């Protein structure tokens, strides 16, 4: 604390004025506290996006702290000088929000267009500081667009926006300011100030004198500011960099776009006093200004919408009625005692916490979906309660799994519960529009997501600013492949073959490191809805999103948490679409009415299937890692699936909890519970926490509970720990928590090693944690999808194909899996296929008919036309051309995909015939040459198409072939080289050496360890390849670039029969695929002749579908 001068800084720009401010709100607030400011006001450009961050930082300061003022710097599109607006009370704050919303709604996403008229309309209760423009500096107002006023016509009473006057000399400004002040004073007497700063321009004192005269003449007080852009002078460099990014110039060319000096930081009050020595009242005025503000974000009271509650009832009554009603429906044979007890308990707790409206709102939203027959399921901390089950929000029967509700709704913290609802991804939009229709756009909006600079974007942008060539920047950026959130390190710079001590690169990297974590722009949250009873746009400004008819607020989910507002996540889940489609197919073809809760439970056949890792397409357990886990874990009941879903996650893996669990499960290890020293507590204190999972913590909340029980964290601390992990915000906090957790546990007598593993696990949970409730919801979907797969494989494959893209597997694998399960799959045909894949009755059940959507490049409109004119059937290609009048391109695609099989069997002849048809789109090139009726042609036969070419063409058009696998044609070649098939690999003994070649299906690089998992496929099945990091380095080109990969290595077979080929060498054999298109006659391939200078048809470039890669 310094001196006795009382000073408040009001013109503070944070980095939420994107690419203008160069400090985080937290840094500014903390610095203000350190300097002993009386108050600090956050005023970003036409936004309140950063104020909650400032508020959160302010709350955390424990010592004496400055008052935090919430405001905005209004930047006008009509040439009016900037005005700082600070609401004096809550009502005025609401008006400020409304005004900013108005400005945002008339502009495209991310912009805000305001005119002085808007301020005059909403000024009541706002304290206004006129900020004269700094001479020679532009305000950065976007060029005036006439269309802005089009919006105004629709707004009642909004002041029109006039284009700014062109003159911009000091004198004109001077007069303009005077008249502006006069206008404001007449409308808002006593609430207008004139802000001045001392930017060290040489003539500061003279200007100060002038403004003193102006202020005196208009009798408004002069207010001292430093027009702050960053918290400390060291940030000048970064401020220069962000200015350059904003203006798209390099530092060397930026010139006077940059500030002349580093003065625009928070200065100690006595320094401000010195600067304003000749106008001490301007300093004193800042404190008087701050004193007049009686608004703080704490006053924002969030209220739940009350729509769902019928008049005359309280929300609690209504919820109780609905719950018991629902319970009666769910348990027609009478509500079991266990459920009855749970319901009573939960309802009592909900009543105590007064969160009934929240459950009702979620119930309401789920109701929309139910009425429209959209599948949905809730998850999240409060979702797996008995109440949610009986309300139909979830389908996890509380009889099946017992979840302790109060564990997730913490009574102490008064935090709103958290329920996410997944909907069918293709139909979520309907739900969203229903929400808007019911609550109105002023009461419902999406949360924002703050898009921050990540290492890659940061280095790319700063690289440009420093004039580094794109080559260098890309090299730097690619060094951080896949690593998020952490800073660029010297090692990574070296990886890009660049010298980290090169001054330019070092500076660029330093600036990039500082830039990481800076907000870049706001974007809509995937589905987090904020709903209120009163106007939402009086709590926070709302603006349009890039998507039409979407609106989002300026705060993200952390901000919403900070202010304890409620959010319902309306999310999209592909698997629900798939399940819905499967249910529909089952209803049509087998007459079964199904819903999520109605699927027969605990079917042993389903578990048998899963134990064999037969899980292609099954939700959550179809990934490589999960498929490896299934035979080890051998799920036999629902709770096993819950564990299965949760165990293959970074948390348990990093905490090394997987193997202990498996050993205990298979009885190889005794189940025991780590215990503290006797003097510190009972030896079974962890039994309660861990008994469900055999003493091994697997779920996120177990880890949290562990921190509370074993390391004596308070619930708040445990929650803080979870949050610190979720957003690697700052390393300092994490280390503090680590010391506390590990120290706390060892002090109480737990083993050091165990404590550290627990911490690592919590670390792993951070970003991808799965709480038990969450896992239970997902496990339920996994069970449902597995049940469909087991009992209705045709419907399952069909639905899965129609819900693409989703999941891990490409259509080729789904089709292959279906055929292995005895499903007959039929080729696309113009006479039988619809747009979607369909089921057709066949001997012994249902056959899967591939749909037109499987054909690459074929459009849905074409399919509609084709089907509309099909009536009975098409008899000839000309028939289609005449009746459906599809563009020739469409017909060529159909012919190439061999979908005329019901008309003629020869693919080439059909194709040749199609090329002769005239184009209904009437390309001028072809116009003259065709007549409507064509003479029959007598043609020499075309060369016969070999099977390998057929298969290749199938792959090119459909990404799959029902005829054969590409590898069959190369089998002889590879056998000659001693390369075995994937099937041989699965049968090979542990430790054997083998070489295997196949089409690359997937490449995965989970986590940061650098191990790559590759799935190879051939006609005999698939083989799993593991490439250790060292080898990845050596064979990177082959691993990343091959479509057909040959791997030599060692077989690794686990006791459960999971087989891996551990790579020792990798060879790119993609070129072999070209053999397939060569005719026996042997037209030389063009590539071998011309060295790659020939332009190839895109289809030929993509000989086989690209593998699906996950990083």
């Amino acid at each position, binding site marked *: 604390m310094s001196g006795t001068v009382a000073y408040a800084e009001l013109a503070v720009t944070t980095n939420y004025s994107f690419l203008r401010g160069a400090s985080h709100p937290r840094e500014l607030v903390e610095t203000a506290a350190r300097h002993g400011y009386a108050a600090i006001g956050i005023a970003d450009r036409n936004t309140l996006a950063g104020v909650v961050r400032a508020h959160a930082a302010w709350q955390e300061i424990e010592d004496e702290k400055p008052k935090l003022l919430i405001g905005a710097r209004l930047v006008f599109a009509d040439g009016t000088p900037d005005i700082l607006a600070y609401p004096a009370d809550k009502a005025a704050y609401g008006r400020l929000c409304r005004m900013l919303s108005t400005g945002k709604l008339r502009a495209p996403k991310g912009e805000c267009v305001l005119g002085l008229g808007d301020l005059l309309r909403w000024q009541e209760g706002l304290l206004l500081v006129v900020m004269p423009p700094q001479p020679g500096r532009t305000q950065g107002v976007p060029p005036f667009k006439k269309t802005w006023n089009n919006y105004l016509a629709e707004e009642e009473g909004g002041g029109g926006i006039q284009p700014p006057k062109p003159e911009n000399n000091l004198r004109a400004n001077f007069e303009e300011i005077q008249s502006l002040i006069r206008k404001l004073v007449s409308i808002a007497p006593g609430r207008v100030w004139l802000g001045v700063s001392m930017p060290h321009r040489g003539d500061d004192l003279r200007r100060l004198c002038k403004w003193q005269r102006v202020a005196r003449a208009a009798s408004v007080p002069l207010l001292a500011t430093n027009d702050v852009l960053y918290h400390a002078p060291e940030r000048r460099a970064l401020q220069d960099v962000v200015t350059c990014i904003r203006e798209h110039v390099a530092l060397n060319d930026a010139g006077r776009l940059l500030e002349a000096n580093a003065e625009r930081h928070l200065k100690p009050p006595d320094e401000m006093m010195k600067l304003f020595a000749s106008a001490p009242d301007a300093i004193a005025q800042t404190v008087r200004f701050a004193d007049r503000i009686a608004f703080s974000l704490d006053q924002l009271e969030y209220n739940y919408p009350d729509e769902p509650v019928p008049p005359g009832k309280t929300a609690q009554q209504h919820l109780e009625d609905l719950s018991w009603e629902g319970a009666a429906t769910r348990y027609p044979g009478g509500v079991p005692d266990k459920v009855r007890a749970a319901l009573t308990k939960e309802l009592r707790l909900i009543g105590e916490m007064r969160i009934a409206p929240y459950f009702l709102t979620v119930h309401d939203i789920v109701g929309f979906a139910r009425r429209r027959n959209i599948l949905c399921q809730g998850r999240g901390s409060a979702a797996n309660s008995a109440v949610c089950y009986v309300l139909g929000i979830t389908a996890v029967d509380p009889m099946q799994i017992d979840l302790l509700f109060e564990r997730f709704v913490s009574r102490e913290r008064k935090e709103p519960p958290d329920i996410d609802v997944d909907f069918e991804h293709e139909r979520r939009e309907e739900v969203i529009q229903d929400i808007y229709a019911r609550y109105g756009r002023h009461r419902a909006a999406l949360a924002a997501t703050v898009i921050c600079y990540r290492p890659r974007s940061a280095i790319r942008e700063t690289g440009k600013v420093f004039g580094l060539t794109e080559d260098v920047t890309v090299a730097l950026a690619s060094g951080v492949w896949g690593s998020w959130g952490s800073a660029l390190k010297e090692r990574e710079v070296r990886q890009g073959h660049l010298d980290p001590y090169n001054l330019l690169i070092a500076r660029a990297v330093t600036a990039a490191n500082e830039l990481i974590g800076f907000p870049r722009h706001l974007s809509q949250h995937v589905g987090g809805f904020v709903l209120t009873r009163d106007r939402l746009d009086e709590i926070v400004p709302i603006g349009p999103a890039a998507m039409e008819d979407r609106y989002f607020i300026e705060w993200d989910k952390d901000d919403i948490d900070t202010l304890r507002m409620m959010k319902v996540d309306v999310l999209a889940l592909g698997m629900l679409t798939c399940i819905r489609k499967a249910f529909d197919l089952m209803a049509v073809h087998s007459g079964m009415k199904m819903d999520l809760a109605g699927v027969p439970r605990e079917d042993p056949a389903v578990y048998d299937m899963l134990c064999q890792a037969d899980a292609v397409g099954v939700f959550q357990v179809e990934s490589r890692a999960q498929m490896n886990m299934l035979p080890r874990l051998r799920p036999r009941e629902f709770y096993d699936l819950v564990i299965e879903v949760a165990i293959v996650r970074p948390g348990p893996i990093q905490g090394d909890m997987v193997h202990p669990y498996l050993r205990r499960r298979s009885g190889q290890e005794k189940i025991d519970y780590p215990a503290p020293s006797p003097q510190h507590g009972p030896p079974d204190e962890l039994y309660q926490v861990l008994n469900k999972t055999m003493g091994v913590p697997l779920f996120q909340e177990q880890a949290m509970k562990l921190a509370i029980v074993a390391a004596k964290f308070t619930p708040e601390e445990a929650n803080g720990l979870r949050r610190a992990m979720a957003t690697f915000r700052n390393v300092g906090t994490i280390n503090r928590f680590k010391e506390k957790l590990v120290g706390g546990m060892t002090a109480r007598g737990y083993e050091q090693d165990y404590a550290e593993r627990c911490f690592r696990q919590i670390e792993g949970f951070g970003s991808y944690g799965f709480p038990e409730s969450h896992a239970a919801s997902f496990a339920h979907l996994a069970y449902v999808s597995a049940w469909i797969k087991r009992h209705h494989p045709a419907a399952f494959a069909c639905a899965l194909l129609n819900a693409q893209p989703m999941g891990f597997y490409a259509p080729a694998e789904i089709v292959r899996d279906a055929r292995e399960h005895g499903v007959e799959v039929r080729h696309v045909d113009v006479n039988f296929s619809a747009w979607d894949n369909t089921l057709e009755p066949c001997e012994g059940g249902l056959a899967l008919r591939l749909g037109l959507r499987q054909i690459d490049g074929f459009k849905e409109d074409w399919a509609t036309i084709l089907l509309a004119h099909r009536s009975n059937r098409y008899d000839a290609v000309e028939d289609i051309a005449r009746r459906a009048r599809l563009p020739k391109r469409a017909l060529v695609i159909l012919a190439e995909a061999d979908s005329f099989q019901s008309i003629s069997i020869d693919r080439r002849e059909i194709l040749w015939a199609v*090329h002769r048809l005239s184009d209904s789109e009437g390309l001028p090139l*072809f116009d003259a*040459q065709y007549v409507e009726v064509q003479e029959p042609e007598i043609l020499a036969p075309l060369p016969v198409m070999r099977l390998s070419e057929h298969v290749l063409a199938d792959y090119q058009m459909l990404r799959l072939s029902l005829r054969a696998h590409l590898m069959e044609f190369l089998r002889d070649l590879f056998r000659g080289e001693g390369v075995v098939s994937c099937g041989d690999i699965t049968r090979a003994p542990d430790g054997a050496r083998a070489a295997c070649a196949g089409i690359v299906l997937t490449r995965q690089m989970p986590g940061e360890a650098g191990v790559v998992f590759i799935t190879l496929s051939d006609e005999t099945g698939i083989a799993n390849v593991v490439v250790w990091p060292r080898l990845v380095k050596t064979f990177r080109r082959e691993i990343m670039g091959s479509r057909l990969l040959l791997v030599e290595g060692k077989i690794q077979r686990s006791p459960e029969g999971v087989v891996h080929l551990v790579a020792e060498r990798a060879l790119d054999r993609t070129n072999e695929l070209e053999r397939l298109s060569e005719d026996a006659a042997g*037209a*030389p391939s063009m590539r071998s002749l011309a060295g790659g200078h020939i332009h190839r048809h895109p289809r030929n*470039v993509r000989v086989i579908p690209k593998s699906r890669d996950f990083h």
Partner: protein
Amino acid sequence: MRLTAVDRKATSLGLYVGQPLANARAMLPALKVMAANEPADLKLLERIADWCDGFTPFVALDPPRGLLLDVTGAAHLFGGEQAMLGRLCASLQKQGFKVRGALASTATAARALARCQDGTVVPPGGEAASLAPLPIEALNLDPVTTHAFRRAGLKTIGQMASRGRAELTARFGAQLVFTLDHALGQTEKPISPRLPLPDYCAERRFAEPVVTQDTILSTLASLAASLSEVLERHGEGARRLEAVFFRADGTVRHIAVETGSPTREPAVIALLFREKLDALADPIDPGFGFDLIRLAASRAERCDAAGFGADAKEKKEIRFLVDRLAARFGSHRILSFQPNDTHIPEAAFVAVPAQYAEASKLSWEKIREAREAPRRPLRLLASPEPVTVQQGEKLHFRWRHVLHVAAHLEGPERIAMEWWRHQTPQPTRDYFRVEDEEGRRFWLYREGETPRWFLHGMFA
């Protein structure tokens, strides 16, 4: 971004034209790439075409990387067709290019063969036979058509040619059949040789070689007049003019002048050449006289009709003066100041050749507002000079042994140095405007922790 060309090494590593850059980088993080520069490639191709003029005047571009030469009647000069092709390719190879070539009766056939069978010379009438085994890609058809043929199983030019012409026309149009027939040597299509770029040029031949300076100058003047007419017709003016003097004995002398703005007045042009010829260190020597003098505008630009108003006239006169001086002394010696966009006072201006000065769009920073004293001196000292300062009641400073006592002082204007340009951080400067007791005004600055003072300039 996609790869547009790959070298042999890259091809051997599996990279190919059309591959997305990101994929290539994923395979080879250390991959070196250069941005494609199509105009530069085309320029290079044109330069090679120019060079080929030595073999035949009929050279056509076949972009992006082909040249077509019509060598009808020229081959015998080089010892036959095979020898000519060999020599052409060999000399290009020597220049560092990778070359493939073939010779046939039609351009299409030659092109196809060059792509697939380097060095082939097809005897007249042998096209069909030589082309038959080639893949259809050799015809360079559009990818869609090529793909259609491949898919139909017609993968060589021979297979394509075996189909009926009506059959092909019905499917792919007459153009394809025409190309095919052309390739097979069954139709003729002349190549269109490159045209010289439109050029502004006037020349006069003399039956009797001219020798005297006067005649030369008056010739230039009249050439300037006719050149000016052509330029005016096209609404252009010359930025660079070149006079070429062809001496009767075969030596040629080029003399060029440049102008600061597009010019086409004959008098001006003549005067510029007079200045230039006068000032030549190595005067032109007519020897036995010139039999041809050519005047060409080797760089021309859009030239709008001269502006109006006194200002325009004044500007024009200045420009003309600059051009004349530049013609005489060299354009690098006639300089003018240009504003430079920076806060650093000594870097805020740069001296550039006056003829190019127009280009800058930046205006000078205002150093004074109306009715105010200037914020900065008009001229600065060549480099800031240290002064010793005693700060008492008033600021005293000693500069060049003379003590000045500040009567008035305003500041500081704080200017921080451009941090990214310097190895070590440079101190921030605080500038002061100082008026001494005798009314002289100085611009002083102070820098550093323990302040050091400098005088940077004086106000007039």
